[in-house]
């Protein structure tokens, strides 16, 4: 019984981690066809901004987390304008040499990976140079819950609630708002969407800002629980990446299912064989999943559904 409860908590923890790490990346990848390898560093930025706002400025924790999220979203806007869409360099290029300097990185998977990798190198090292190798930390709030001989951090339980909240919110944004409709139209057929009056470039920019904001939120939420080092994003990036691919083309549902599935495997194997084995199991599962379901879980579900409809007609 106690062990089952342990497993449940571990599962919730893994689930929240995978979902929160992946959400921002999934939205940017799903809509823009850009793989943001600096995603981990966006999370790092959110965590640093939160910690600095809390420790140096003395803001209450929730306000500091809001700061972390907003700072990262604004940074995302800057990155989108300068690197992803090439708006700023091309504006300069038109003024100085009379031509565009670069093409946008939309749907150029390999190039976007390389470019954002360069960005992540700069961010990690930039933070290391300006703020040093580590930072004072916020303590984990909310205390512990005890059961039997064990105790568990209340904050981590709250995190899984927040992860669910993020999923629900993202689902509502994409299905119930005008922005969501535009974004989905842009995914389905960019040219037609533009012909019908959707400002796709603005949709892209907004998407990138939202994705960055979510990364910032993730960083803010995990700021009290992870060690504040410039390279902290690396541990998020891998899980995020894997969850996006395993989840497949349906952004919200895919992230939820991948989070549940990978989180479950991670929790189970960690419980039986230790955390290293848990991480390896998660990664190997992902490799096998990509091999057998290259379109991810939701792609598979869609294919099955399409086939059934054909059979029924």
């Amino acid at each position, binding site marked *: 019984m106690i062990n089952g409860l342990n497993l449940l908590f571990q599962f919730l923890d893994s689930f929240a981690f995978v979902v929160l790490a992946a959400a921002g990346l999934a939205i940017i990848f799903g809509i823009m066809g850009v*793989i943001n390898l600096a995603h981990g560093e966006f999370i790092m930025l959110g965590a640093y901004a939160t910690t600095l706002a809390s420790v140096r400025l003395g803001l209450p924790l929730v306000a500091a987390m809001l700061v972390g999220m907003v700072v990262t979203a604004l940074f995302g806007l800057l990155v989108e304008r300068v*690197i992803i869409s*090439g708006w700023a*360099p091309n504006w300069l290029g038109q003024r100085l040499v009379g031509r565009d*300097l*670069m*093409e946008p*990185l939309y749907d150029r*998977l*390999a*190039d976007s*990976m*390389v*470019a954002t*990798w*360069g*960005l*992540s*190198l*700069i961010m*990690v*090292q*930039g933070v*290391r*140079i300006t703020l040093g190798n580590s930072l004072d930390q916020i303590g984990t709030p909310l205390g512990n819950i005890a059961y039997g001989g064990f105790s568990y951090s209340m904050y981590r339980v709250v995190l899984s609630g927040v992860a669910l909240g993020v999923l629900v919110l993202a689902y509502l944004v994409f299905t119930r708002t005008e922005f969501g409709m535009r974004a989905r139209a842009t995914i389905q057929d960019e040219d037609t969407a533009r012909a019908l009056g959707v400002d796709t470039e603005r949709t892209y920019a907004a998407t990138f800002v939202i994705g960055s904001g979510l990364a910032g939120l993730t960083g803010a939420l995990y700021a009290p629980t992870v060690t504040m080092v410039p390279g902290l994003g*690396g541990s998020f*990036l*891998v899980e995020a*990446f*894997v969850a996006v*691919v395993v989840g497949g083309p349906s952004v919200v549902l895919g992230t939820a299912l991948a989070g549940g599935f990978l989180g479950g495997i991670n929790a189970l194997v960690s419980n039986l064989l230790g955390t*290293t084995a848990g*991480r*390896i199991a998660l*990664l*190997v599962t*992902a*490799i096998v999943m*990509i*091999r*057998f379901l*290259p379109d991810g879980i939701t792609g598979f579900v869609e294919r099955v559904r399409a086939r059934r409809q054909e059979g029924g007609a």
Partner: protein
Amino acid sequence: MATETGAGRTDSEPSGLLGRVRGRLEGPNTIGNSRAYWAGFAVAVAALLVYPYIVGAYQASRFSLFLVYAFLGLSLSVVWGYAGVLSFGQVVFFGVAGYTFGVVSVNFATPAGITGAFLVGIGGGALVAAVLGYFMFYGGVRDVYVTIITLVSTLVLHTFMAQTAGDQWTIGEAALGGFNGMPTIPNLAFGVGGAALVISDVMFYYLVLVLLVATYLGLRVLVNSDFGRVMVAVREDEDRTRMFGYDVRRAKLLVFTLGGALAGLSGVLYAAWGNYVSPGVFELAFASLPVVWVSIGGRDTLLGAVAATVGIEFFRNSLGGEWAFVTVGALLLVSILGLPGGVVPWLDRTYRNLRGGGTTPPTETTDSTDPEVTEA
């Protein structure tokens, strides 16, 4: 096909041994098909040959590491630039080969044993690549999913090797050593019994240089051969290549295995160079370096891969200190945004446009430029 082999030739005599050799080395798939290029190539090799006499043994030994990395760059250039498979996992084969060399050479620390370890290490890299490639390509994994599987494989190995600190992770006399790695790998040596040759310092530099020149020329022959054309066809359009009756999966598997062997060679030399290998070779930061080199140099030129690898590593090493990574990152950003094709193809185009007196229109494609048109 023999008539087509010389199609890219420009100004060489049609007969004679030299002409035949050049015919093999030249073609539309490589940059540098002119006498001027080969003259420059000879000068560059000569400069590298006298380099140790100018800067001394210590600097030469340091420089040989950059030459060792060039094999890793070449391996990605072949796999990604020519066959269109972006692999983030070249370091997997690099690291596996390094560890294999370490384990075998520590257990059999005689010249014959180390010669064997050298070969087993390269074979290990190729074998892992073949298994992983078979798993991916024969399972229909394509495009960015290959990239992600290779990236995840790197991280699996990093996670695994980092926890091999205990006594149970000792193979024969060789302890894998967890995070600290294997620090007592012997120098490279060749020979059997009494006739042994231990290779270190300047001798190592020359060995690597000779191997590198041979590999570069060998790969030029390969990419300009019929199989090379199939590779490029796979890169340009996989489905169409299959329609023409080529086995795309087999072609990709072969190229990937070759890439694994090249990365393995690099890994073995790396382990022998520093007498050391650690899980650091599977880190994300190191895994991305080949992508950086090859993107900046120009992914579909072998020359670009070698030049960029040696150049960037030399630069990064000389710069040292905390700003090195910032500079490399900025360089990467600017070059991928401004010159998506890479620096070396851009230089080549600029040079030929200057020589051609502006008579040829600048070509957009990096691979289909016909040298005959340009030189005419």
